[in-house]
């Protein structure tokens, strides 16, 4: 899938430049926008209806909590300090320039001039400082943003547009963290309101403004007429083309697709493999595949207890399950097999296909070697009277139906080698409960974060220590000093080549230790009607951007 607009434009940092550009573009109605795919001039006006299958956010301020449904919506009305282009390079957004000190402990950000929040408050260093304080304040109950900004010790406004951050330790992931919607910048004046008020209508600098939120139905967003802060890779400048967006909540996949076909909605997310396949025969409907960054979707093998405390059994399991046939038959070609702990959109991802081939004979040999030599009446392997049995809690909120079917196929192929997989479909809270009680041998848990630092969260031994809730992110429960050291060093090394080498080494350890079985990228498919032009997903966390979108009548 290629996007109509690929030419990055450097942000116009000076106010005069921005104003001039706006005037110019308004005058010649975006004459420069390419027309590779969507021929025709951008049309201003109209209401776009977006139907999301994700859960309805509990709070529209993504600082609070911080999950993907919030990121989807917030990308329309809030903007972060930096963004990423299609090549994975960090590019300016609300911050025009930045500088890291020699020792990596001080960062200086220069903000864009002349930007205002939609309540009239100016964007300045004090505003950004207030946002960092808001994310770090326990009262806010931020989790994703809180983890992202964990290394920031203090912030000071050097002058109106210059912000200095003092860090507890060097943070090579700081820019990637600042590109995420969970730490997007909001009006400091609006943040002073009660959390209820701010959750209902956060105030940002984005191209749209939250006007109304009817719970369980829709959010209405209207155009920000004074908008002047697009990211450096946007296709135009000035206000958005669309006059408004209706953000509808349609939980049922078939209903979303039917509504799209009927023309009631223009764009849907969470398109399922069968729907995408059906849409391929439909001229009016187009497909946008935007895998999420961070970790790949993978099975994690719990090494903290038998039988996966034995590396031979882990490798035997990986060799015993036929992932590829399942993926190709159940996902209709919409998902590509991964052999990496990281998403394919991560430039530093490292793959090794040779480790993950389906090989039942090898699986049997390894299990024999590991001492699982006998079989019981049902054909499962037994050792010391114990059956080779694997608990596999599956969250029905996170695993789409195709993935649940894939797990059933894995169950069937693993049985031939003598593994019993006990699939246990659970709702989200029960699933958390099973993990907190260490009541699992296999689990699939998504994790979205920009950049390879996600590896530290997933595989550093610190992440095996449960939070008070009992949850921990290192679900393979890997505890290796060598790996810890690489991940810590990686998070503190800004030199691109050194950083890449450290993360490659770390990924090799993860893959060769058979702590995980990579499946595919975190699936993130959008379907949209052909009258929608200029749609793209932001290269940061793959949320759709409607700033450049217009509707052809």
């Amino acid at each position, binding site marked *: 899938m290629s996007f109509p607009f690929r030419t990055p434009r450097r942000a116009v940092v000076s106010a005069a430049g921005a104003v001039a550009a706006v005037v110019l573009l308004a005058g010649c109605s975006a004459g420069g926008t390419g027309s590779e795919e969507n021929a025709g001039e951008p049309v201003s006006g109209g209401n776009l209806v977006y139907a999301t299958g994700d*859960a*309805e*956010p*509990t*709070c529209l301020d993504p600082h609070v*909590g*911080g*999950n*993907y*449904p*919030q990121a989807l919506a917030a990308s329309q009305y809030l903007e972060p300090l930096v963004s990423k282009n299609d090549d994975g390079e960090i590019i300016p957004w609300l911050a025009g320039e930045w500088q890291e000190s020699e020792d990596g402990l001080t960062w200086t950000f220069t903000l864009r001039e002349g930007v205002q929040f939609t309540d009239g408050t100016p964007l300045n260093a004090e505003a950004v400082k207030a946002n960092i304080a808001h994310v770090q304040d*326990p009262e*806010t*109950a*931020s*989790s*994703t943003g*809180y*983890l992202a900004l964990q290394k920031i010790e203090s912030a000071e406004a050097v002058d109106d547009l210059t912000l200095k951050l003092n860090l507890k330790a060097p943070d090579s992931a700081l820019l990637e963290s600042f590109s995420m919607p969970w730490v997007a910048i909001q009006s400091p004046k609006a943040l002073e309101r009660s*959390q*209820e008020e701010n*959750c209902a209508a956060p105030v940002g600098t984005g191209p749209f403004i939250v006007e109304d939120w009817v*719970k*369980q*139905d829709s959010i209405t967003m209207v155009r920000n007429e004074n908008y002047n802060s697009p990211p450096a890779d946007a296709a135009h400048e000035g206000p958005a083309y669309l006059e408004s967006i209706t953000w*509808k*909540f*349609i*939980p*049922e996949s*078939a*209903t*979303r697709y*039917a*509504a799209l*076909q*009927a023309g*009631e*909605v223009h764009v849907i997310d969470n398109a399922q493999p069968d729907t995408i396949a059906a849409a391929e025969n439909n001229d009016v409907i187009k497909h946008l595949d935007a895998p999420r960054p961070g970790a790949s979707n993978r099975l994690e093998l719990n090494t903290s207890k038998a039988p996966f405390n034995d590396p031979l059994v882990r490798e035997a399991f990986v060799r015993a399950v036929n992932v590829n046939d399942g993926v190709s038959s159940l996902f209709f070609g919409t998902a590509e097999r991964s052999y990496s702990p990281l998403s394919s959109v991560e430039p530093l991802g490292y793959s090794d296909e040779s480790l993950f081939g389906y090989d039942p004979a090898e699986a049997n040999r390894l299990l024999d070697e590991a001492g699982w030599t006998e079989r019981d009446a049902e054909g499962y392997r037994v050792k010391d009277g114990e059956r080779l049995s694997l608990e596999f809690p599956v*969250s029905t*909120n*996170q695993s789409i139906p195709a993935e649940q079917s894939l797990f059933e196929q894995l169950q069937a192929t693993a049985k031939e080698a003598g593994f019993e997989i006990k699939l246990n479909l659970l*709702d*989200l*809270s*029960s699933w*958390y*409960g099973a993990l*907190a*009680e260490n009541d699992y041998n296999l689990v699939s848990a*998504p*994790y*979205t974060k920009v950049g390879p630092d996600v590896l530290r*969260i997933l595989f550093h031994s610190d992440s095996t220590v449960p*939070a*008070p*809730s*009992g*949850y921990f*992110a290192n679900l393979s429960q890997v505890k290796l000093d060598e790996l810890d050291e690489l991940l810590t060093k990686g998070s503190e090394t800004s030199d691109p080549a050194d950083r890449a080498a450290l993360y490659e080494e770390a990924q090799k350890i993860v893959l060769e230790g058979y702590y995980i079985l990579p499946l595919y990228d975190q699936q993130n498919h959008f379907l949209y009607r052909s009258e929608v032009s200029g749609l793209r997903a932001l290269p940061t966390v793959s949320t759709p951007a409607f700033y450049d979108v217009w509707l052809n009548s």
Partner: protein
Amino acid sequence: MSGSTPEQPAPGRPALSDDGRGPARTLADGVRLPTTVRWLLAKVVGAVFVLWAVATLIFFGIRLIPGDPAEAILGGPGSQASPEALEQVRRDYGLDQPLLVQYFTQLGRLVQGDLGDSYSLRMPVAELLGNQLPGTLLLSALALLVAWLLALGLAGWSTLNGKAAAVVASGLEIAAAAVPHFWLASILILLFSNTLGWLPPVSTNSADGLVLPVLALALPLAGFLGQVMRESMLNAMTSPFALSARARGEGETGVLFRHALRHAALPGIALSGWAFGSLLSGAVVVESIFARPGLGRTLLNAVTLRDIPLVTGVALVSALAYVVVMAASDVAERAADPRLRAA
């Protein structure tokens, strides 16, 4: 809910009136209460008991399922909550208190009519229910009406058209009653929205937006009601009073409408309370599929998120609606069947 003031019967009132009131009784303290008031009081006491039981069951039941509400409040999977955030949430929502303290705190609030604030939607539960209830009531009431009409229509048609029609009707009824709501709803969307393009898949309160969800709810219920109604209608048509009506020269259609219909309606009325309950549970599925705001969808989200105040609120309102409809169907049954009044 406040108790009603006992009504003093007028002196000389007949012991058995034709409006369904039974003979007046004497209480221990000598206050005489008409049967209707006694009946009402019993209903109110029963309703209060049901509501308390529902609140208690929900409170403890939702805690038996594993999972931490604090984690759920913070948005679940992608958001690995920090310890500080979790503690903050536990303090804010009183989740750090002992279970019994939480229970009595909640019960105390409920007695004062305070349903609390929803964890997940951060709004007063009463306000949320106020917004969601009318849509669900409209949907359920229309579905009940449509189910009634379909069931009666089918029963009447099959009664007048002999054995073959009875077999067809019975087959249709069994099929309709056996169909799960989610399957029926998906098929209706596939047929009327995707293929024919006649009706929108996303429900609104406009006429064409209501057709599919109402049908999805009404068809299974119609199948069930139809089975009972058709049987009573057939019995009535072969009973002595039908025979004497025919002897007086009444045609089959006349016998059906003037005599058998009332009999067919009786089990239907008696079942309407139950039917309404089944519609509320069906609304959970149907509202989700047709993306229709309402009580059912609220409940589904609330359970998933362990939103205890909201689950309790929805359950209490549903229980109350159920009690009211049961009472109404009692009254309707007495009105339709004179035999019950003397009892």
